[in-house]
């Protein structure tokens, strides 16, 4: 998720958003804001969303939805271009250090390895949700954005659960158009909707937010698998 740095200072909103994401069953979230506001608040955010706390909350509130472990990653502008510069230096040391100019060009795996070695590795997100005034990725690391679906969700202060579910559902439907039905099922499992109670809650919420035709298609897809 890309969040405008000024809006990211509203931590209660960030907590709420992550709560929703955890409810839906997303396993891994990369939190990005250019100025590193979220990075600076890494501790309170991770403390809030550790698996122990999730279980306690589920018990206290008596919610039906089972929370899963949510892996959080914190990224800022310096993990983009500057990280590539550091990776270039790493590659220089590794391949040119013996005083011989290497003849072969660097490859993408070598670059990925270099970025990992300097601490700026990480998977490419499937879906990038932008919370801010405009549809702009604000410098999210270029190396991790190649084929990511980018959706603008509007300002953080006016975020809604329905829009979030709609964006994630739309992503799964888009990918079902491009893969076979067997692969499409595995794409849906990415957001881990095997828990029947989770499915019921999500379907009710989607119905409430006027996604009736999409709910029917979703049910049909589940039944055919």
């Amino acid at each position, binding site marked *: 998720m890309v969040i405008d740095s000024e809006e990211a200072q509203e931590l209660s909103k960030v907590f709420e958003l992550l709560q929703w994401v955890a409810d839906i069953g997303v396993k891994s979230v990369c939190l990005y804001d250019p100025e590193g506001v979220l990075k600076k608040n890494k501790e309170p955010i991770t403390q809030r969303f550790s698996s122990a706390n999730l279980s306690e909350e589920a018990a206290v509130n008596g919610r039906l939805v089972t929370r899963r472990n949510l892996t959080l990653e914190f990224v800022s502008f310096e993990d*983009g271009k500057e990280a*590539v510069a550091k990776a270039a230096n790493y590659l*220089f040391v590794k391949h040119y250090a*013996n005083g011989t100019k290497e003849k072969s060009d660097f490859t993408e795996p070598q670059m990925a390895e270099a970025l990992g070695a300097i601490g700026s590795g990480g998977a490419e997100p499937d879906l990038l949700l932008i919370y801010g*005034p*405009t*549809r*702009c990725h604000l*410098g999210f690391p270029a190396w991790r954005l*190649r084929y990511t679906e980018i959706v603008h969700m509007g300002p953080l202060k006016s975020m809604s659960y329905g829009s979030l579910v709609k964006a994630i559902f739309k992503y799964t439907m888009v990918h079902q158009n491009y893969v076979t039905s067997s692969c499409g099922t595995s794409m849906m499992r990415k957001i881990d909707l095997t828990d029947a109670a989770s499915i019921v809650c999500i379907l009710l919420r989607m119905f409430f937010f006027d996604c009736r035709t999409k709910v029917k298609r979703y049910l049909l897809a589940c039944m055919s698998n």
Partner: protein
Amino acid sequence: MDEDSSSISRVLSVGPVPDHIAFIMDGNRRYAKKRNLLDGAGHRSGYLALMNMLKYCYELGVKYATIYAFSIDNFRRRPEEVQSTMQLILEKIEDLIKEESMVNQYGVRIYFLGSLKLLSKPVRLAAERAMVATSGNSKSVLSICLAYTSSDEILHAVQECCGEKWDEGSALESKGAGNGLVFLKGNENGKIKPSIVVKDLEKHMYAAVAPDPDIIIRTSGETRLSNFLLWQSANCLLYAPPILWPEIGLWHLIWAVLDFQRNFSYLKEKTKLS
């Protein structure tokens, strides 16, 4: 441009006009299918749409335009399709450098950005001819991304920087002034002074011929950048109209420019911060 379009252009020019617009021309094949046209006809319709969009851009005062003509990933398509696309590209490059073309009418300098060594010889030579033929133009710039991806561009820049630093180090070493700063050899503690910075990389990016884009327009409603200008699009407005590329028109451009003007202060502030 007709009178109405000129009036619209004058009205838009009251506000900030983007300096650089980039296009991902998605939907040519789907357009051909939708209209029951032959395979290559979608790309030909797409070319006409492109010429119109470029004219609108240059009339509006947009100095730089970049288009994603052929990705390195596209080489994975069926060989017949790659062949016919390359044939069309070759044909259109020749058209562009003709005397009466839009390029000379608007004083457009053409650059081809990408790993041109991956192209067949005729296409590569045509691209080089077009760059030479338009090198004297200076009113506007058209960057055509051919055999391009951002990841390849970044790798190329890293490779060039490493080669440059090695050459600098070798020159210093041969003069006896290296002090082991560049190479481990002769350095007691084995530490290398990191010397490649972001500015060095940016100098070697294929897209360094133009400033960063202000707007990237991708048609067909697709929301991915598909490995296009990822390095350059940090503070760029992304616009994804749900129409196929050959269906794009002046009003889509107007909408994109109005959106840019609405967000101008915010985007300018973000650019300063980065």
